[in-house]
């Protein structure tokens, strides 16, 4: 039958309505659905199987991370950092994300994820360059395979997909882990990245840190989805819900997703339920949009305390380990303080160096103008 032969209004009585052609969903949605309760390890029977060496390392990194947050916040008060978005309370997500990756893998952090970058091996001062204001990115992304800290929301997610896709096309064993906040899940780029990743079966893991607020807007005003992890099902990838303050649980869920990605099983969306103990940044007043009781409830579920308690009770960690972790953290903080208190030496002529591979005539003119201004200043 051609289109011209289709029966229209008043068509011959020989036409018999038929049911529409058979349709099947592309995938069974059930295995993609997250469990309704966030996955936990600490304080549950699952903690029997903890890897002592990994957990001691996680503990040391959590302690260092907590100290890093405190030091960076102090640096904002001294005017050494323009701004610092704290991850106090979210250290378990940051540390697990950094430790779960192999050397060849890539991390795609948001502006809040300096700690993950530092835990992956980036120099703490280089990690703070963006927030200090002396340049946008203080490191070569290829060196540690850490993409630039991304300020626009969720726009780094399609980059992670593209990089993972390119690596797979080249036959390289590379997984990309992309971090985003709960607010970022409302952005269009979040949708496009997840859709591309699932269609391409790219080796990507999306880690959403649901810390309760996008600056001041609570999750209830951000989404009507049952959980953010449920969003995965619509794209055809598994969604996982995890207690974001339980470093063992976050690590385990991430490790499972990374392994699936590595073996060609495609992307995963993980929602880590956590809480931002401090304000959005030092420029924000969190008392305007949330009460003390809520903050205190989360303080009682602190990621460092949770792990320390479990490991001490199991004899994996003793007082000397805790002391050693604190001392290492102090050493890091002292070095960071010292380096950040030195005034950065900036060369204004750098402004023209990396706009294009080769400067345009306009830029050469403007560089000459600035050079003359600088020379006049020094005379």
């Amino acid at each position, binding site marked *: 039958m051609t289109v011209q032969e289709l029966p229209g209004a008043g068509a011959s009585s020989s036409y018999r309505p038929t049911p529409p052609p058979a349709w099947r969903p592309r995938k069974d949605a059930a295995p993609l659905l997250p469990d309704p309760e966030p996955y936990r390890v600490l304080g549950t029977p699952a903690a029997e199987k903890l890897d002592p060496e990994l957990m001691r390392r996680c503990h040391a990194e959590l302690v260092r991370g907590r100290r890093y947050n405190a030091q960076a916040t102090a640096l904002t008060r001294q005017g050494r950092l323009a701004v610092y978005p704290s991850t106090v309370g979210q250290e378990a997500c940051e540390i697990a994300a950094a430790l779960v990756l192999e050397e060849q893998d890539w991390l795609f952090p948001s502006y809040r994820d300096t700690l993950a970058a530092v835990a992956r091996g980036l120099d703490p001062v280089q990690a703070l360059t963006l927030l200090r204001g002396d340049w946008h*990115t203080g490191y070569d992304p290829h060196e540690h395979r850490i993409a630039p800290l991304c300020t626009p929301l969720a726009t780094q997610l399609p980059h992670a997909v593209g990089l993972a896709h*390119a690596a797979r*096309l080249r036959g390289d064993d590379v997984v990309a882990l992309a971090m985003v906040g709960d607010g970022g899940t409302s952005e269009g*780029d979040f949708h496009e990245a997840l*859709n591309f990743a699932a269609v391409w079966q790219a080796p990507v893991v999306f880690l959403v840190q649901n810390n309760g607020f996008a600056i001041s807007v609570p999750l209830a005003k951000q989404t009507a989805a049952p959980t953010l992890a449920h969003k995965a099902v619509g794209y055809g990838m598994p969604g996982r819900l995890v207690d974001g303050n339980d470093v063992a649980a976050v690590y385990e869920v991430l490790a499972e997703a990374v392994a699936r990605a590595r073996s060609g099983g495609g992307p995963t969306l993980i929602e880590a339920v956590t809480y931002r103990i401090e304000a959005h940044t030092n420029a924000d007043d969190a008392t305007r949009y949330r009460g003390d009781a809520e903050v205190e409830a989360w303080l009682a579920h602190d990621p460092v305390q949770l792990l320390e308690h479990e490991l001490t009770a199991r004899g994996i960690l003793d007082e000397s380990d805790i002391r050693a972790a604190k001392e290492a953290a102090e050493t890091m903080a002292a070095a960071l303080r010292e380096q950040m208190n030195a005034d950065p030496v900036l060369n204004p002529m750098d402004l023209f160096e990396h706009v294009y591979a080769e400067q345009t005539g306009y830029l050469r003119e403007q560089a000459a103008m600035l050079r003359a201004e600088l020379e006049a200043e020094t005379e």
Partner: protein
Amino acid sequence: MAVSQLAAKPATMAQALTRAMRDAMAEDPTVHVMGEDVGTLGGVFRITDGLAKEFGEDRCTDTPLAEAGILGAAVGMAMYGLRPVVEMQFDAFAYPAFEQLISHVARMRNRTRGAMPLPITIRVPYGGGIGGVEHHSDSSEAYYVATPGLTVVTPATVEDAYGLLRASIASDDPVVFLEPKRLYWSKAAWSPDAPAEVPGIGRAVVRRPGTGATLITYGPSLPVCLEAAEAAREEGWDLEVLDLRSLVPFDEETVVAAVRRTGRAVVVHEANGFGGPGAEIAARITERCFHHLEAPVLRVTGLDIPYPPPMLEKHHLPGVDRILDAVARLQWEN
């Protein structure tokens, strides 16, 4: 400097563009073409015709329909060492990708102090004159040229379509490659035995020498300007026609030399006049050629309206008569 290798038979601009991608892909395995409909269909204008068949779907990929996703994924691919060539299908369809373009594509080299250049070519079929419905005829070049970090080129001839696209794909910087869609089917005879030397990105070319005044133009307005220059002969005006080819970088020296030679200039483009590229060009000419000018620099551009419906677009697009009127206003008697 790219050298054309097309067969010695009349070729269209569309075929030259296809051939440019084909040759680039054959020479360099890191070149990947991607976009909506570019694979099996060969693009809605057939510019990517045959590439998926020859190089496979991994090298010429039909993506989901999402421009930010296409360009965002291309950023990640370029980070990993590939050279993505992205098709935006139609000018106004590129707007969802603007955040990726402006916040990331244009800035990644600068943000990382040269550590992470992005060699991405973004092909944007642009401009009107084909009777397209709304969102199919915009001239968006002012947005692109206003963004530091982007190279912006637009061919007006078949040879340039080949040469500039090869140069764009070879560039280590992101290039917005504006394809004048109403010239897709314009033809030229090319010979592989006597390959044409195509000047690289950043060079303007005088398409028609003249002494009385210089018409400065690019892309879809070049044939209109050439036609206007022919018609002007009846008035006794000997017009020069200059094809910019590249809006960023802008070949100021060639433009300045031409205007100093003729003393009169008219900038012609389809994009809206207010805040359009012509405003920048006219300002530059005034700054550098003031004492050589016999008359103010004039602009003949699209009207300052959202792109009109196709049945009225002839009133919007700069035509021969409007160009000749402007030339007449160059105060020839003085």
